[in-house]
């Protein structure tokens, strides 16, 4: 994926939609956006994620472990990798989930102020990391990633004009 895309929001949503379909989800959630962001590889945001150990594979593994931990709280001990698979619905058009709406809201609020439609991957990363209540936050905790430090790094880059 090229890094000189003027507005990667559409590309991200496209990638996140594919992730949601693959996940069997009826909604595009923040974790799908995170995976799509990591998949951009050459963007500053993807590089910051990779430097924190968050490659696509690492994020998928962390999300599975977060899922396992959630089930364990309910007394269910299973390995996600051993769950029966369903054929994904490639014709499904998942709509934007609540966690993605919150992510966009937080991304838009991060300084510096932006004009309409000028939202880049770094800003999206800040929006993704700006909460400790989301599934993304729990997965990062499982992965041993310092979410606050990564958020501060992304916010500093954004403040310096990195898109």
């Amino acid at each position: 994926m090229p890094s000189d895309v003027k507005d990667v929001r559409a590309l991200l949503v496209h990638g996140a939609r594919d992730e949601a379909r693959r996940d069997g989800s009826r909604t595009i959630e923040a974790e799908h956006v995170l995976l799509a962001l990591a998949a951009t590889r050459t963007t500053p945001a993807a590089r910051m994620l990779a430097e924190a150990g968050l490659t696509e594979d690492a994020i998928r593994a962390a999300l599975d472990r977060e899922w396992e931990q959630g089930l364990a709280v309910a007394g269910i001990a299973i390995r996600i990798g051993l769950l029966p698979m369903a054929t994904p619905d490639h014709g499904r058009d998942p709509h934007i989930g609540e966690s993605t709406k919150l992510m966009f809201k937080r991304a838009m609020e991060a300084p510096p102020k932006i004009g309409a439609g000028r939202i880049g991957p770094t800003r999206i990363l800040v929006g993704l990391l700006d909460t400790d209540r989301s599934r993304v936050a729990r997965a990062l905790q499982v992965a041993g990633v310092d979410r606050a430090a990564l958020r501060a790094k992304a916010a500093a880059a954004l403040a310096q004009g990195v898109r």
Partner: protein
Amino acid sequence: MTELVDPEDPAAGLAAVVALRRLADRLEDSQVEQAMRAGWSWSEVAEVLGITRQAVHKKHARRLVAAGVALRRR
């Protein structure tokens, strides 16, 4: 048997709710597919799930047709 959730930690209990919904969704998708591949009818699947035939058809038919599953008419 220990307590299901820690009463001091609602965050863990709430995260468990999400994890259970994800598990139920994965199981429904995979097991409906499994049943239809085994030649079950929509009515039979619907009766086990406790929902209408129309509901299970609406939710799964397109995906299973695309997956190449030979579906029975009823």
